[in-house]
């Protein structure tokens, strides 16, 4: 139905000739923009309702005193459904440790949560298809679990956390009882909020993607940054770091580049770096991690993401 509407708008209203670059780009733009905005509205709403059952105050009780591996796996999974904005990272970190959640498990949670977020997933699903979205979730979870286990095993890692963190004591707060009506109401507000924030970037991203789709030669990326270029993956990760929190704007562009020969591994590495590693996030984490641990944290995450890139370029 959206397809028919996009065709009608492109060929009947704008009177563009079938098969031209311009017609293709316009058609692609209209179709994808409508599809993605619809998917965002529905899926963010559903995810917000699910999330209302997993506030971080509850999650910390689930994760307290969990063993390695089991704890890291659980933490990464819960990271997907637990809502918190990046400015809550510090209280979440302190509160988890105070409740007895092991450090490595807490870090698994903090890696998975921004990396596997609903906006990125909708864009992946809508533009790349369910298979790639699932691969992204799977590899994202693996990176969060492995990085958390490795970090948790560093000798005397506790001493690399700022000292004041261990001295803070938490108060108790009652978890409010929410009715279904409250949940739906909060989900509606949250959905509107996110749509307001990302719509412009989605449109810009899809617009640039449409131009690439219509005008860039088919094997453009394959020629310069294809499978045979060993620097493509690390370079993609480096470019991605300053693009933080802009999954909405970057994913459509990456999708268009994939159509021009960018291999899947490079695509995955790029998107993970966009969502998981960012300068502002590191500044926030610096409040609780000493410089040494912060550097190790960022390095392990970067290396893990680069490995994912090479691995998928080799096997797919």
């Amino acid at each position: 139905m959206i397809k028919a509407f996009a065709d009608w708008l492109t060929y009947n209203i704008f009177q563009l000739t079938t098969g031209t670059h311009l017609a293709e780009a316009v058609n692609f733009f209209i179709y994808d923009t409508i599809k993605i905005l619809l998917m965002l509205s529905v899926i963010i709403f559903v995810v917000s309702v699910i999330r209302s059952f997993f506030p971080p105050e509850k999650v910390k009780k689930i994760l307290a005193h969990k063993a390695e591996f089991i704890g890291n796996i659980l933490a990464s999974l819960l990271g997907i459904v637990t809502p918190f904005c990046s400015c809550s990272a510090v209280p979440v970190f302190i509160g988890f440790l105070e409740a007895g959640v092991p450090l490595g498990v807490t870090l698994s949670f903090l890696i998975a949560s921004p990396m596997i977020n609903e906006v990125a997933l909708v864009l992946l699903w809508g533009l790349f298809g369910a298979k790639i979205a699932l691969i992204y979730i799977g590899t994202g979870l693996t990176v969060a679990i492995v990085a958390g286990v490795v970090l948790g095993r560093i000798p005397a890692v506790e001493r690399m956390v700022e000292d004041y963190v261990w001295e803070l004591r938490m108060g108790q707060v009652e978890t409010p009882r929410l009715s279904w009506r409250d949940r739906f109401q909060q989900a509606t507000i949250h959905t509107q909020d996110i749509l307001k924030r990302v719509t412009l970037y989605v449109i810009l991203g899809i617009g640039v993607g449409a131009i690439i789709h219509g005008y860039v030669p088919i094997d453009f990326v394959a020629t310069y940054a294809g499978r045979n270029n060993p620097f493509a993956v690390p370079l993609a990760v480096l470019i991605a770091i300053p693009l933080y929190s802009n999954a909405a704007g970057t994913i459509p562009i990456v999708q268009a580049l994939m159509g021009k020969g960018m291999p899947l591994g490079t695509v995955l590495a790029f998107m993970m770096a966009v969502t998981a590693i960012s300068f502002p996030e590191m500044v926030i984490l610096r409040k609780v991690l000493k410089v040494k641990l912060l550097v190790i944290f960022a390095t392990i995450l970067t290396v893990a993401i680069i490995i994912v890139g090479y691995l998928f370029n080799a096997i797919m």
Partner: protein
Amino acid sequence: MEIKILGPGCRNCEKLAEEAKLAAKDAGCPADVVKVTDMKQIMSYGILGTPGLVINGKVKSYGRIPSVKEIKKWIEEEK
């Protein structure tokens, strides 16, 4: 009446502070809106998700931005 906004001072905290001021004005209730950014104090309320909203020492909401209408209702309860 004392209204406290708990949070490190990101965009969400700013927005909540504005809404709280609006709600207090709507309710016709003079209130001081104070931003609490010190982590030690924030944690003492037991919340993890910011921003938190505290009215007369009671945590009313956290981890989300309630609507002006909700805040107004809480202010009236505490009057």
